[in-house]
């Protein structure tokens, strides 16, 4: 039974019809984005007549005051006054510009995760010497093709958004004699600016960004090379598998550090005063479960389209278990972070959750986040049958992907937009643009390689996989 499937090489054909549909989705995304942008600019325009968005500005002020008063309980009284002066003296872009930058940055971080998790999944399979997954590894591998695009976007976007998103990029914060001096951020300055002077060019921060994307891309190239060269070998061979395992192991070591640090750099440093030692894990967990849901969804749709005959309900079951288990893992990390901050009740820590849990634009997202990412996957995926049937996978995986998009929204937006944030057409349009670009890149990459490695030493094991 197994042998007859074995020999047929499968190739994914990226049909013009699907490509066209993705382009239509992209164009709709651009239109929604444009409309959202116009609406955002207009709502700002109305405020302009009443003296530079007095309402909006006042609420920013209010948050700063709240943050400041909470933070300065532990500091000298004089420092509190300085902080007030600072927030007034700050040059702030118009709210719609900030909103645009925030959603661009947020979506890029989210889709960077989908790309890098593709590579991470492949590396895990090699390092664990897993056999069951050898028929589906090309799908996460294709997702890795997004890494270079994400890297270029991330580095380019940083120069655009830094002033509005990254409070620490303002030079005045590090001037001990200036009115904006912030002792807390000054203490963290070295992490961004070393070896240059604080407040100049964030050399250490940028070096990390470049090195992370560079190394991720390099590892992706190496692992992909071994996987594709294996196809050219005359028969089943372990040579390339062993090399891919070696690269995977080194990549996992590198990713263990770089995933955490990228979470601090690209997301946590937006709320510059705040920190959580759980945060690296938290963002990784969110990335990971989203990536797993995406891989599962692509496998299911490929099977629906008649590809991947070698994948059966047992493989789907394993993928479903991955999504189920890591939804719980994400919740565990989420709760681990929340409970300690809730119980310790230290003002400079709780401000993070007060902004997200108790303020109007984010409160529903905060609770929807838990519902979509924990309650629904937990209950819907609990039974064995649910994980083995494609219909259920098609219901739960999109929920998880949307849920974690909201999770990233709530990680990034409140720290920048304060009371002015929210999900509107602008945010949805941006997500649609990123999604279609990501799909175009991934499906094109997938169509350029065989759907599974016919010489993979563990393909036979995968064919007989039974749970």
């Amino acid at each position, binding site marked *: 039974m197994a042998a007859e499937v074995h020999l047929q090489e499968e190739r994914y054909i990226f049909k013009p019809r699907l490509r066209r549909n993705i382009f239509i989705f992209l164009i709709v995304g651009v239109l929604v984005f444009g409309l959202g942008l116009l609406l955002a600019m207009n709502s700002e325009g109305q405020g302009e007549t009443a003296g530079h968005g007095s309402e909006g500005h006042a609420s920013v002020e209010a948050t700063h005051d709240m943050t400041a008063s909470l933070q300065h309980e532990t500091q000298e009284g004089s420092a509190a006054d300085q902080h007030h002066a600072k927030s007034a003296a700050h040059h702030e872009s118009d709210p719609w510009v900030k909103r645009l930058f925030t959603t661009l940055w947020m979506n890029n971080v989210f889709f960077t995760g989908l790309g890098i998790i593709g590579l991470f999944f492949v590396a895990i399979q090699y390092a664990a010497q897993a056999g069951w997954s050898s028929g589906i590894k090309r799908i996460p591998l294709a997702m890795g093709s997004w890494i270079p695009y994400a890297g270029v976007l991330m580095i380019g976007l940083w120069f655009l958004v830094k002033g509005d998103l990254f409070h620490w990029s303002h030079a005045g914060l590090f001037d001990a004699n200036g009115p904006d001096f912030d002792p807390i951020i000054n203490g963290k300055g070295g992490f961004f600016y070393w070896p240059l002077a604080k407040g100049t060019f964030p050399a250490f921060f940028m070096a990390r960004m470049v090195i992370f994307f560079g190394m991720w891309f390099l590892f992706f190239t190496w692992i992909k090379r071994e996987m594709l060269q294996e196809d050219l070998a005359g028969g089943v061979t372990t040579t390339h598998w062993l090399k891919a395992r070696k690269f995977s192991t080194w990549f996992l070591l590198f990713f263990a550090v770089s995933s955490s640090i990228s979470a601090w750099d690209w997301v946590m440093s937006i709320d510059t005063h705040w920190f959580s030692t759980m945060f690296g894990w938290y963002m990784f967990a969110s990335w990971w479960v989203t990536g797993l849901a995406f891989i599962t969804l692509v496998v299911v749709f490929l099977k629906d389209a008649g590809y991947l005959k070698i994948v059966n309900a047992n493989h789907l079951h394993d993928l479903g278990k991955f999504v189920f288990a890591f939804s719980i893992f994400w919740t565990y990390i989420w709760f681990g972070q929340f409970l300690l901050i*809730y119980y310790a*009740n230290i003002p400079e820590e709780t401000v993070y959750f007060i902004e997200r849990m108790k303020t109007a634009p984010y409160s529903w997202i905060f609770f929807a986040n838990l519902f979509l990412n924990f309650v629904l996957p937990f209950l819907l995926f609990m039974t*064995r049958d649910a994980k083995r049937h494609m219909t259920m996978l098609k219901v739960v995986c999109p929920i998880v992907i949307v849920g974690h998009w909201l999770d990233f929204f709530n990680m990034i937006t409140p720290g920048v937009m304060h009371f002015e944030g929210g999900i509107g057409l602008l945010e949805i349009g941006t997500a649609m643009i990123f999604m279609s670009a990501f799909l175009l890149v991934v499906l094109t990459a997938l169509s350029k390689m065989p759907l599974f490695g016919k010489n993979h030493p563990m393909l036979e094991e995968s064919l007989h996989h*039974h749970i």
Partner: protein
Amino acid sequence: MDADKHFIVGIFDDEEVLLKGIGKIRGNGVKIHDVYSPFPVHGIDDALSIKRSRLPIAAFLFGMTGTSLALLMQIWMLGYDWPMIIGGKNHASLPPFIPVTFELTVLLAALGMVGTFFIASDMKPYKWPRQFDLRSTDDKHVMAIDLAINSGKTKDELRSLLRESGASEVNEKSFE
């Protein structure tokens, strides 16, 4: 003990042979009492048409019992019986109750599952289980066929059927 039970016992060396043999024996209309293996054999449940275990349902119910008990216990203790102020929180506030609730859910689900398994498998203290062949704990697969429910076939027919299906050895075993 009730009336004497008589079995024909087939010994198989290899699980692939065993799986094929099960199909052949059942195809001949013989009902297999049970098969004992030293390790889990993939696909044997389907080959023997064993129904899916209902243990997960028991686990879920025990788990829910644990969740409810834990929440009730904590809300009653800290909310009503002996209210305490901890970290300035409400007496009965949900987040600090979650870890205990989780632990009790897992504990009751696990213990309940073990207990249910013992009862469902008829394993209890001082009960000596039937041993068809001790080698099923070492390196042989042991298939037992109850003679009483296979009255349509003679002993010799069953013996030769087992031999044809790949059994390396065929014995008889009776229990009082």
